[in-house]
C-alpha cells in the first residue's frame, strides 16, 4: 500500500479523540440539565417542608425532564459504544445504512454548532459491504465535515445510499463550490490514505452539488 500505516494511525487517533471529546460534551450537557432539574425538585421539596404550597404538576414535569435527558444520554452512550466497538476487527461485514445513521448521529452536535441540518435518506434496501469499519467511519466523517463547510444557503446536507451492481455509492447533496481547487483541499494525506485503504473513490458533480464516494461492494484486502 502506498500510504504508510502511520498516516492512518495518527489520523485515526485524532479522529477517535475528536469523537470522544464531542460525545463527552454532549453527555455533559444532558447531565447539566438533569442536575438543574434535580436541584429544582429539591428546591420545591424544601419549600413544601416550610409549608409553602407546591404545584404537583410542576414536580411531575421536572421529573419528566430528567427522564428525557436520561433517554438522551442513554442514546449518546449507545452510539459511543457502537463507535468504540468499530475498532474490534480489522474487517467485517457492515450494513452501510446503519453506519451512515451512526455517523449522522455522531455528527449531530458538530452540525448544530455550524447551523447545518443533516438528513439521511432511508435506503431502499439493505446494503452490506466487507471492509474496515473504523476506516470507513473516519472517511464518512471527513466527507461530512467537508460537506457541512460547503453546504448551500439552506444549510442542509442530505446523504443518499445507492447500490449499483457491486458498487456502493454514498452521495452527499446540497453542496456548492465543488470546483477543482476546493476538491484538491479535500484530498489530505489522511483522506487519500483512507480511500486507498478501503478501495474507495471520490468524485464531485459541481452542477448537481453532489459529492460521491464509491465503495467496491466486495472484499478489498487491506495492505495490498
Amino acid at each position, binding site marked *: 500500500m502506498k500510504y504508510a500505516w502511520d498516516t492512518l494511525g495518527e489520523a485515526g487517533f485524532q479522529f477517535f479523540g475528536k469523537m470522544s*471529546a464531542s460525545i463527552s*460534551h454532549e453527555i*455533559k450537557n444532558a447531565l*447539566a*440539565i438533569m442536575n438543574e432539574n434535580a436541584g429544582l425538585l429539591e428546591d420545591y421539596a424544601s419549600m413544601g417542608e416550610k409549608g409553602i404550597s407546591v404545584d404537583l404538576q410542576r414536580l411531575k414535569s421536572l421529573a419528566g425532564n430528567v427522564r428525557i435527558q436520561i433517554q438522551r444520554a442513554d442514546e449518546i452512550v449507545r452510539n459511543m459504544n457502537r463507535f468504540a466497538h468499530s475498532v474490534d476487527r480489522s474487517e467485517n461485514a457492515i450494513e452501510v445504512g446503519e453506519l451512515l445513521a451512526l455517523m449522522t448521529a455522531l455528527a449531530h452536535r458538530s452540525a448544530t454548532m*455550524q447551523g447545518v441540518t443533516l438528513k439521511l435518506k432511508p435506503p431502499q434496501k439493505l446494503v452490506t459491504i466487507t471492509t474496515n469499519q473504523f476506516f470507513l467511519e473516519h472517511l464518512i466523517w471527513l466527507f461530512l465535515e467537508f460537506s457541512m463547510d460547503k453546504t448551500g444557503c439552506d444549510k442542509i446536507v442530505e446523504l443518499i445510499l445507492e447500490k449499483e451492481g457491486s458498487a456502493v455509492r454514498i452521495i452527499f447533496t446540497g453542496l456548492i463550490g465543488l470546483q477543482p481547487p476546493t476538491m484538491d483541499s479535500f484530498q489530505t494525506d489522511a483522506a487519500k490514505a483512507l480511500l486507498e485503504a478501503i478501495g474507495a473513490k471520490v468524485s464531485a458533480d459541481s452542477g448537481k452539488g453532489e459529492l460521491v464516494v464509491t465503495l467496491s461492494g466486495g472484499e478489498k484486502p487491506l495492505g495490498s
Partner: protein
Amino acid sequence: MKTRILLVDDEEQFVQALSERLTLRGYDVTTSLSGEDALEKLKHYNYEVVILDIAMPGLDGVTTLREIKKFKPLTEVIMLTGHATVETAIEGMKLGAADYLVKPCDTEELMAKINKAHQKKAGTEERIREAKVKDIISSPRSVLKKK
C-alpha cells in the same frame, strides 16, 4: 435591589431550569439562547453579571465575551463550560471573564461566584465615580475648589 443576571446558553431546558433556580434565590434573571441575542439584550439593558456558555452555535461564548467587553466593559462575565480544560478558562480570563465553572455546576458555588462578580463590578463603578468627583473638584474651574 436584586442582582440582574443574563443567562446565555443554547440548551433551552438548561437555561429554563437554572433561571428558575436563581430566581427562587432572589436574582432577577433574563435568558438568551444565543450569543447574538445576548448582545442585543445587553445593548438595551444593564446586567450586573452575565453567565455565558462557551460552546454555542453561531457566535460562540469567547467571541460573545469579546464583544461584551467592547461595549459593556464593566459587566462581569462568568463562563460556563462542558470542557474541563484549563486552556478554555485561561482564554476567557485573558479576555476579561471574572471566573468560570464546569457543567454540571454546583448552584451554591455559582451563586458565590455571581455575588463576588457583582461586588467586583460595584467596587469598580464606585471607584470610577470617586475618580470623576475628584476630577471635577480638582478642575481649575471647579466652584468647589477651596481658594
